[in-house]
């Protein structure tokens, strides 16, 4: 194998670690990235000639550091940069004494910098994918259906803001910990959902963002073990992802959770998720992701405990008193058999959720159960008009056709009992909101 593919693999796995280590010394993400890419160019030449070093990651870090030293020397700004340069030279000397040192792991600090609330939400996601996920700007642009120059600009503006506004490269203290961890988890969940929902329906072109989010959550769990909400998020993502193969039917339409072919579920993923939920719960500090994960676990059980799911939504509402959680709670109530009460709760959410597709889909299903065929068909029409992806529309059209058939008295007997479906991400019965916070 030549140097290039090895370099590619190392870059993919060690980029975050090397960048974080450089950031700790330079406090400038832009400079760190440039130095790393120059080091990669050197590596191509050197490794091609002399072979791949024992610890290629450490080699890249040392080379990147020297690139910066050279650059500062060339720029003749030695005086202004003296303290930085000394720090860097010391780090370099230390690396020389021990030819293949471990790269210090500063990634936790980098995670918090990248998802700092002073950055725009989309920027946090892009920056996390670029620095810690090791995705290229082109890949991130494609994932978000942006042009590469626009994404490049977004990333460089972010790096400039980090440097100029003094966004710290630090793990937040106990006072800010919960809120800032929440921001990090929201970023990872957005990445996951972007990959899972495939809102624009262009799946084959997109990198696997769900796998990326799981990779990053595992990294976070490793860097900060036994953090209940980190465990909860990882469990939620693993269990949702484990059902991926059963999510679309042969016709490409979404299949609701309760009708999925369970043989297609990845049992290992679900088992790992369940074990993580147990670990999180044992830490006795409940939070929204743990509750969502517990709900996902109940949905994967052989016998689904509807009452327990409803009670968990009640708890979730205390953490996230949002209309979307209220909607999911109402749907969970319907599943316990309380159709009329659930329908009233859903109807009451119209003002808040009238532009939210799952609201109309849920309304349609509940009206259908309540025997309001015409009103149900109308709500399906509203849901279809608001759906952003093909699989979801296909699913909703099937439901609409079933309602119309049911309205025909001759065929009424063929109608099976309708299940409440919500379409999209929420089909899974997990209380996913568009803005998980």
């Amino acid at each position: 194998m030549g140097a290039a593919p090895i370099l590619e693999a190392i870059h993919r796995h060690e980029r975050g670690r090397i960048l974080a280590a450089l950031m700790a010394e330079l406090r400038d993400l832009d400079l760190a990235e440039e130095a790393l890419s120059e080091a990669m160019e050197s590596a191509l030449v050197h490794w091609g000639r002399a072979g791949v070093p024992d610890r290629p990651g450490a080699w890249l870090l040392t080379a990147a550091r020297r690139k910066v030293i050279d650059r500062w020397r060339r720029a003749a700004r030695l005086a202004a940069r003296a303290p930085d340069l000394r720090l860097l030279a010391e780090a370099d000397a230390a690396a020389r004494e021990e030819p293949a040192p471990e790269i210090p792991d500063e990634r936790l600090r980098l995670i918090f910098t990248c998802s700092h609330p002073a950055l725009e939400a989309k920027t946090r996601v892009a920056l996390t994918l670029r620095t810690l996920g090791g995705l290229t700007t082109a890949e991130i642009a494609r994932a978000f259906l942006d042009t590469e120059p626009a994404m490049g600009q977004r990333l460089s503006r972010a790096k400039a803001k980090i440097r100029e506004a003094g966004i710290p490269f630090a793990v937040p203290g106990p006072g800010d910990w919960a809120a800032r961890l929440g921001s990090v988890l929201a970023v990872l969940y957005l990445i996951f959902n972007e990959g899972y929902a495939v809102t624009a329906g262009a799946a084959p072109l997109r990198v696997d963002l769900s796998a990326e989010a799981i990779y990053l959550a595992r990294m976070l769990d490793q860097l900060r073990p036994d953090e209940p909400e980190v465990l909860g998020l990882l469990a939620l993502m693993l269990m949702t992802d484990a059902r991926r193969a059963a999510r679309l039917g042969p016709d490409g339409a979404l299949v609701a959770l309760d009708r999925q072919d369970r043989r297609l579920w990845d049992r290992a993923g679900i088992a790992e998720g369940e074990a993580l939920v147990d670990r999180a719960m044992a830490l006795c500090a409940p939070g929204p992701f743990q509750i969502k994960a517990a709900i996902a676990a109940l949905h994967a059980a052989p016998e689904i405990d509807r009452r327990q799911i409803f009670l968990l939504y009640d708890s979730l509402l205390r953490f996230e008193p949002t209309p979307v959680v209220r909607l999911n709670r109402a749907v969970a109530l319907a599943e316990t058999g309380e159709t009329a009460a659930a329908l009233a709760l859903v109807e009451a959410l119209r003002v808040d959720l009238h532009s939210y597709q799952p609201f109309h889909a849920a309304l349609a299903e509940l009206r259908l159960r309540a025997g309001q065929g015409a009103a149900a068909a109308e709500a399906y029409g509203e849901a279809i008009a608001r759906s952003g992806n093909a699989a979801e529309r296909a699913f909703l059209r099937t439901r609409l056709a079933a309602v119309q058939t049911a309205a025909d008295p001759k065929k009424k007997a063929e109608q099976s009992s309708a299940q409440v479906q919500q379409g999209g991400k929420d089909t899974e019965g997990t209380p996913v909101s568009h803005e998980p916070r």
Partner: protein
Amino acid sequence: MKYIALIYYDPAEAPQSGGSMNEAYIDFNRRAGAAGVLAGGDALQAPATATVVRMRGGEAQTMDGPFAETKEQLGGYYLLDCADLDQALHWAAQIPGARIGAVEVRPLMIFNA
């Protein structure tokens, strides 16, 4: 790093000055001063007292009124000397005006001599 904390408020929504608001500002000044982050600050007269000047074609054009005709107006500012943005936001959040309006935090430009 030095940060300016610009205090924006809606004059229509603001409580009458004096009373508890003044006490809250006095308390903030005392605490920020004791913590060594207070590098300056002032309250401004009402937006109606503002005059805007522009130089156009070598001539000064003077106009009545605040620069931006928006609901939220600049009411005052603090200069904060902090280690990083987190510390600046920590203090900015405690400015009493943040409770009724919004505080914009921006680093000052550093010019290397």
